[in-house]
């Protein structure tokens, strides 16, 4: 297993820093089913980290552990130097972890703009009375946050659907709106659960470009689950491979591709 800790400069001039998140010896069980078994890996500042594996390998469970949806029976999670038994969703959110979901989880009846604005709720500090009045400080706060949301709308090139209810949008655009909502939190660590599932080639290319740009422009660390191997190998700096809840490989895309265990897992060799 490779454990890199020193800051490194990638071929494309990005800086990858210290360990930002460390998951150690995580075991997660649902009754008698072990979803994740004794798994450890880390995510470093500024990198694009992929989590891959066949269906049911425990990838989404892992993301849910990282942002506190699930509470593992064993192990620890260290984020920004603070070690916890398990993460809690509200702590994850306030600490700067944002995520998108495998099946889009937006407010279907609300517009793109409003959906992304909800991502700013943690940044809105004014109390409810000010907000009901919508005057003075509350208005200024709203304007300030709206400004930020507009930069995201511009960034993701979704100006044309600003006022559209998201339920009416095609799937690919909904995914983009969801990404926008996550970005509105100004996250330090962005978790993407299959950002390209169900997209056509062109949409995938667009999404890849957005992921790279987010990483480069904002310096956001990204951990993503993805099934399209081409995309994973092109985008990510390091890849974690899970199979049946266990970590079977961890390394650069090249190393992982050559790993016999990974090849077996994908081609379906019988497990003992």
């Amino acid at each position: 297993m490779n454990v890199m800790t020193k800051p490194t400069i990638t071929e494309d001039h990005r800086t990858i820093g210290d360990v930002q998140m460390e998951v150690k010896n995580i075991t997660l069980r649902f009754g008698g089913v072990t979803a994740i078994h004794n798994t450890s890996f880390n995510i470093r500042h500024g990198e694009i980290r992929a989590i891959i594996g066949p269906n049911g390998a425990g990838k989404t469970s892992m993301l849910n552990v990282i942002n506190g949806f699930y509470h593992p029976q064993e192990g620890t999670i260290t984020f920004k130097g603070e070690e916890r038994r398990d993460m809690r969703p509200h702590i994850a959110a306030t600490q700067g972890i944002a995520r998108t979901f495998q099946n889009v989880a937006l407010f279907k009846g609300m517009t793109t703009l409003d959906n992304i604005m909800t991502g700013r709720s943690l940044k809105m500090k004014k109390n409810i009375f000010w907000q009901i009045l919508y005057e003075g400080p509350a208005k200024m706060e709203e304007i300030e946050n709206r400004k930020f949301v507009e930069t995201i709308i511009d960034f993701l090139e979704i100006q044309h659907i600003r006022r559209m209810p998201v339920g009416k949008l095609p799937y690919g655009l909904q995914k983009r709106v969801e990404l926008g909502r996550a970005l509105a939190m100004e996250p330090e660590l962005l978790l993407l659960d299959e950002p390209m599932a169900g997209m056509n080639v062109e949409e995938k290319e667009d999404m890849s470009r957005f992921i790279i740009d987010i990483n480069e422009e904002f310096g956001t660390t990204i951990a993503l689950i993805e099934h399209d191997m081409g995309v994973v190998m092109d985008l990510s700096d390091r890849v974690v491979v899970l199979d049946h809840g266990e970590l079977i490989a961890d390394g650069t895309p090249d190393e992982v591709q050559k790993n016999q265990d990974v090849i077996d897992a994908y081609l379906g060799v019988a497990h003992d």
Partner: protein
Amino acid sequence: MADLRTSAGETPCIREEHVLTTEIVLPDGLDTIPKLLDRNAREFGDAAACREKEFGIWQSWTWAQVRDEVDQLALGMIELGLREGDHVAIIGNNRPHLYWAMVASQACGAIPVPLYQDSVAEEMAYVLKHCGARFAVVEDQEQVDKLLEMSGKTPSLKQIVYLDPRGLRKYDHTSMHPYTDVQKLGVDQADAIRGPKKPTLREELDRRKETANGDDTCIILYTSGTTGRPKGVVLSNYNIIATAKTSSEFDHLSSKDSVLAYLPMAWVGDFIFSIGQSYWTGFCVSCPESPETMHQDMREIGPTYFFAPPRFYEGLITSVAIRMEDASPLKQRLYKYFMDHARAVGGAILDGKPVGPWARVKYLLGSILIYGPLKNTLGISRVRVGYTAGEAIGPEIFEFYRSLGINLKQLYGQTEAAVFVTQQPDGEVRADTVGVPSPGVEIRIDDNGEVFYRSPGVFQVYFKNKKSTAETKDKEGWVATGDAGFIEPSTGHLRIIDRAKDVGKMRDGSMFAPKYVENKLKFYPNILEAVVFGDGRDRCCAFINIDLTAVGNWAERNNITYGSYQELAGHEQVLAMIQGHVEEVNESVARDEMLSACQIHRFLVLHKQLDADDGELTRTQKVRRRPIEEKYTDLIEALYDGSETVFADTEVTYEDGRKGRIAATLEIRDARVVGAERMAAE
């Protein structure tokens, strides 16, 4: 084509040549665009010169600010080594900064060459190499990538200036600069001492602005060309400014007008409207937030002077038709009732013709209930002068807008004429003519029926292409349009029939004018594009492209499921519907004595949309007949050999330049044609 002329009932006086070419005299000191900008900054410095929607808010720049922006960029570009006579490629969507880059280039004594932003890398490389551009000012990473990809083929290109830095951070910046950095460089270095007797940057810029005059090249515009390689049309400052002056006067444009710049910057019309006329009269030009938000932005801006190709107007009507079908029964009935009334009297009211008082009251009521809200939704409430050009517009479409009270007119123009050849004056507007010669333009029809013109806007030469220049423009300045047409003796209006080279003969000698039939087909919302064949053959056949929006909506309402464009295009019921349209067109064509042989006997619905990326359409979305004929020889053969189906396997190009294939078995249908006997009996 001689029969074309005679059958059109031409009288001898039409070929009589006018003696003089009208010389337009420009006021002193207003013979270049940068000089016009200086005047505007002086005279209406605080008025808005341009707007752009950014981050959801309209940002404005006054004329004085625009002048400063342009000067700063010009200084920076000189510092980067831009020389007089250099060519500067401009690539991107309509953005104020790119318009400023054009004017800044002119201020430096260089020549802007705008390119179509959706061109693939090779097309760009051809133009860049042909004009020898040393600088390029581009919008974003997409365009930078295309330039870098082709850098091996464009050795002359030295500097790239880009607007949007996103994604470009890690690129090699030795010969690439952010737009604002260039402006900053200009400001920082403007007054730096360069050594004894050497002018400072600012002095150098002032000198360059001062020495430029009306005879210098203003811009080179590459025509997309329905055939062959694009040609660079060289237009002088005099061409542009004289045309802007006369055309502004024709439609009484003033600094109070407002336009939306959304058509490609590489197209001559956009340059004339957004720079020529705007700088001449001082009106404000607004740029949409992105191409997709254009309709919304148009509603917000409410342009008073508006230009669009027929396609745009058709698209608006299609969207209205689709939404009305989903509306409540009451709304549908109101809409139908008042639209019928508008069709009956709206045009007459607009033209100031006598209309009864009761009809007027009803029209007023309609304005409150239907026409007003409809115009507002479409963003055309304030349109005072609207033009359509480029292709023939369907009479019903034309009348639709006029009946709503929109002063929609037609014009006929060319890049080579700096747009204007003929246009319709207020009160003389009809769907089937393109109007009378624009101010200062002379028209001549030659013995073959081809239209020629001569005007102050006539281009100088095709850049580095003496042969084509000689073929198009003669020594006396007459330019061949390549279009066949005639002048109506009674009204003096010009009527265009088709491209002169496309007008052919069928085997029995009768005339074949494909565009005429194609336009009739395209007037149906369900048909996006049609290509008719028949030159030198015994009957006509056609390719049809369905309109995915219209047919898709129709399919939804009729519970027809489909998984792709291809599946929908091949659906039994879609074919039956298209067949109905074709047969209706045949009946209408049969009524035209001269062209009754052009009825369509057999047709097929194509499995893919004709596309500019596949070389089937020009960048301005016109059908490229020859390439289509060559590409689909097997399909055409099947149309004529009586087969009932044909297998098509076609290469397609995706937007990023990669290739793929689409295969399908297409059904060929026979359409009923109306016999000469029946017509005679009627």
